[in-house]
């Protein structure tokens, strides 16, 4: 899948907005939202939040986790830990990118926040490369990857699974064929002569 498809999946998350207009409840297929009251916070899917923001119909309320102190802690923890730490949620990077991209004026300290999130992302990406190498060296047939988000998992595709497939293929064909020659009886001469 490409990043835009993961983003698409992440856009279903609920985000909080403050509309500048009033409307009745809206009944979408994915659920009902509203009523919209100018100045009062409410929840909508992220894609709708971004769409309304682009039409200048709302302000986006930053999610709780998108706050400098909080992020600094996450970053420190991620640096310290050998393993991947738990992120605020499955689509933290998508949410950050969309909200900071469409509504940075609604977010206090937007540019610092952007930098810290990018740092966290980079630390995790380099950890990811190290773990891939370790996984291939230690056997390369099974791995556990708790706390990796969907976008991060997607970033090792197709490399990791296809290298694991390749390794398996090499193991299977090279070993299988070794045993095959030892007790093989392939087609007989008479069979061949019928073919001719």
């Amino acid at each position, binding site marked *: 899948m*490409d*990043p*835009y498809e993961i*983003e698409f999946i992440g856009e279903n998350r609920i985000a909080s907005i403050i509309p500048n207009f009033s409307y009745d409840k809206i009944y979408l297929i994915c659920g009902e939202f509203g009523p919209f009251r100018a100045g009062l916070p409410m929840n909508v899917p992220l894609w709708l939040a971004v769409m309304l923001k682009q039409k200048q119909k709302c302000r986006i309320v930053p999610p709780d986790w998108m706050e400098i102190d909080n992020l600094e802690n996450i970053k420190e923890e991620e640096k310290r830990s050998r393993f991947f730490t738990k992120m605020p949620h499955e689509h933290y990077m998508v949410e950050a*990118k969309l909200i900071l*991209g*469409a509504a940075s004026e609604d977010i206090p300290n937007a540019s610092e926040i952007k930098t810290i999130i*990018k740092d966290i992302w980079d630390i995790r990406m380099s950890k990811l*490369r190290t773990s*891939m*190498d370790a996984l*291939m*060296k230690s056997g*390369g047939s099974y791995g556990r990857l708790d706390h990796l988000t969907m976008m991060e998992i*997607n*970033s*090792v*595709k*197709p*490399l990791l699974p*296809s*290298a694991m497939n*390749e*390794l398996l*293929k*090499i*193991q299977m*064909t*090279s*070993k299988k*064929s*070794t045993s*095959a*020659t*030892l007790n*093989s*009886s*392939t*087609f*007989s*001469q008479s069979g*061949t002569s019928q073919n001719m």
Partner: protein
Amino acid sequence: MSYLSVTDILVSNEKVPCKFLHDLPKLGFLDPSCTDDDLKAGTSVEIPIWLAESLSSRRPPLVTVDLPKVYKETYREIFSADACTVDMHKLAQYFYELGCYVAKYDIKGEVATTLVNTFRQRFKMILSASVATDSINALQPLSECERDHTVAAMTTEKALSSWLKRGESLLTTATMVANHRKRKRAEMEML
């Protein structure tokens, strides 16, 4: 491997040293150094692995297959010392694929072990090449399938970094349409 796979057909076109166990009347041309019409039993010739496989699997076998030199002990030692120093593209561009074919002619199974360990060791070269700034040089020593893995990883890497940078993905012309248009333009310019 699939019957219709173009890659497998190209791989199985690689040559391996074989010794013919029987006379082959009229097939002297298989040995470039042979001037006779016939090929004599006992002659050693390099033939493509697809032919070698088919002839050695007959009962009784018509040829014995020898290992190409990169799978023999001298090279196996080099690989186990440090597989990452080898320019696989020059040495054997289908190292793993051909290796899988010839491993069966190595009863001790050492070729199989070398293949697995070499791939494991060299995986870090793929990893670093996929994010290298100088990708041409990083790709150079890689075998054909290692290159394929790397190119795929580079594509992911590129898609991800452009996603991080950009707001929206633009809708674009379909690949074949674009390529054919490019080719047509190039042809027009040549006229």
